[in-house]
């Protein structure tokens, strides 16, 4: 049987396996073949695995997630030859459910970026238009899923790194409620923001993968118990109260084609029985990016301290310890991590802490409170995920701030630890547009229900036109 990996969902692949229409080996081989065919162009993968045996579903894994015995680079030269000796908890959970690691996907270095252009190993390409970015930092997983090179994947989201690539590549991505998925074994970027999440073709697949990886972990003391995941099945949205924050939907820089596609989706939601009302996030959008680009780099500057050439990773020569680590870190980190380390160090440094990091943590409280207030009246907040469709490779790389603004719509809910789901809602200029649904903490089931019904109604064809 020839498998159309571009169309095959995890749910469908699982059915084929259980009915023995295909074998585990055939399934894995089909993806390897697709990778052989399209990955030279897409560069979704940094490492492709051999079939480990068994007949579980293959899973692509973003290269910031530690996989025992499989190289894990975080998209950086400083970890070029690093092979973890332990699995991240999410990988252990996946393996317990029989999933097999298909390969490690490309990422902006240390998950810092919105395009994968910051990867030390070269950018990944958008399957809809390979001259354009797939988004980032999880562009590799996105290109893999949309490019038919994996049925589903794991990503990580700090400021939008799952949701934004999902929007740009036209598939589903969930950023879970903070604390519902373990970070143990995941290379840390910003500890109070990082979450691992599912990247998939459908909302049902997404929900299923979330149920596999989530749950309190004794190895991660910031995790909590998770409500039981319900795989969504309904078609209607009766009773769902949708809020449309005007600052999100009217933010600077949103392309008209994006607004149009999102507006149509909102109208569709209404026709499915949801109530829709405009609302306001007075400061969250305006100050979210500034807040994020203080908190995240501060935590990152500390998290990246361990890359010192002592116990693993790159080591450059030096006459003494200090010289060795200065050279190692200069050689091993690319520009974006260096920028963030320096901004972060500055924000935490003596004399500046209160003005920068301390203030940002207070702004974070403001953002959280504004969202909490809205969730007393609404079940879901809706907006575009990304202000633009996929932009050309190279277009924003020399302008860090322009690059940061890609995350203006995904960042606010991240700061508040809230879950967010991206579903594709249409095309603009032939490229996918993503709809972001944000819920209160632990409201994944609401997001899945809403996302699934909308997904069915929208009927977006996730296979890139040029690959059909």
């Amino acid at each position, binding site marked *: 049987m020839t498998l159309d990996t571009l169309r095959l969902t995890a749910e469908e692949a699982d059915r084929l396996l259980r009915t023995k229409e295909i074998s585990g080996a055939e399934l894995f081989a089909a993806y390897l073949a697709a990778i052989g065919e399209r990955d030279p162009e897409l560069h979704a993968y940094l490492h492709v695995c051999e079939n480990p045996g068994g007949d579980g579903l293959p899973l692509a894994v973003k290269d910031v997630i530690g996989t025992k015995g499989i190289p894990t680079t975080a998209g950086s030269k400083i970890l070029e030859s690093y092979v973890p000796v332990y699995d991240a908890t999410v990988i252990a959970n996946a393996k317990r459910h029989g999933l097999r690691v298909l390969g490690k996907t490309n990422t902006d270095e240390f998950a810092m970026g919105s395009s994968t252009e910051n990867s030390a190993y070269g950018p990944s390409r958008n399957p809809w238009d390979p001259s354009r970015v797939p988004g980032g930092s999880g562009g590799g997983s996105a290109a893999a899923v949309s490019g038919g090179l994996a049925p589903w994947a794991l990503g990580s989201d700090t400021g939008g790194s799952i949701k934004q690539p999902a929007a740009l590549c036209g598939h589903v991505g969930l950023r879970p409620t903070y604390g519902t998925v373990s970070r143990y074994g995941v290379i840390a970027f910003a500890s109070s923001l990082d979450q691992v999440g599912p990247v998939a073709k459908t909302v049902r697949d997404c929900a299923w993968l979330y149920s596999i990886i989530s749950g309190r972990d004794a190895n991660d003391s910031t995790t909590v118990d998770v409500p039981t995941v319900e795989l969504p099945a309904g078609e209607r949205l009766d009773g769902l109260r949708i809020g449309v924050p005007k600052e999100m939907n009217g933010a600077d820089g949103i392309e008209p084609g994006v607004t149009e596609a999102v507006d149509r989706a909102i109208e569709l939601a209404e026709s499915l029985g949801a109530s829709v009302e405009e609302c306001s996030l007075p400061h969250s959008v305006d100050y979210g990016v500034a807040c994020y680009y203080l908190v995240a780099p501060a935590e990152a500057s500390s998290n990246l301290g361990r890359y*010192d050439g002592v116990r693993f990773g790159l080591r450059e020569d030096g006459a003494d310890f200090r010289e060795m680590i200065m050279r190692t870190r200069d050689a091993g980190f690319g520009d974006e991590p260096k920028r963030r380390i*320096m901004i972060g160090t*500055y924000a935490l440094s003596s004399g500046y802490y209160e003005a920068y990091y301390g203030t940002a943590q207070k702004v974070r409280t403001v953002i959280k409170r504004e969202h909490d207030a809205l969730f007393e009246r609404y079940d879901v907040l809706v907006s575009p995920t990304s202000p633009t469709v996929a932009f050309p490779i190279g277009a924003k790389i020399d302008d860090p701030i322009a690059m940061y603004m890609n995350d203006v719509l995904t960042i606010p809910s991240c700061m508040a630890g809230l879950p967010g789901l991206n579903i594709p809602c249409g095309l603009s200029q032939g490229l996918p547009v993503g709809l972001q649904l944000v819920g209160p903490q632990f409201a994944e089931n609401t997001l899945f229900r809403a996302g699934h019904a909308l997904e069915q109604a929208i009927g977006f064809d996730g296979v890139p036109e040029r690959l059909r």
Partner: protein
Amino acid sequence: MARITRDEVLHVARLARLELTGAEVEKFQEQLSDILEAVSKVSELDLADVPPTAHPLEIANAWGEDEPRESLPLDEVFANAPERDGDYFRVPPA
């Protein structure tokens, strides 16, 4: 205007143990100044009675029991070591 001086760039680079070239210092000074200006926006808000948020979840007292678990075998401890000397990690003198 929140510009960062060359000395400040050198200072944070030293604190973060990054050995920057002269050209890098110049480039980063420019970029960091732009970023700093953008993020300084946070001080525009009135945050008088707002407490900081260190954690998105309000949880406390997450502890582990004092019961030993197996440590890593030495071959795993050193699996990625740049320089192993017997059963020690070896580095240039500190």
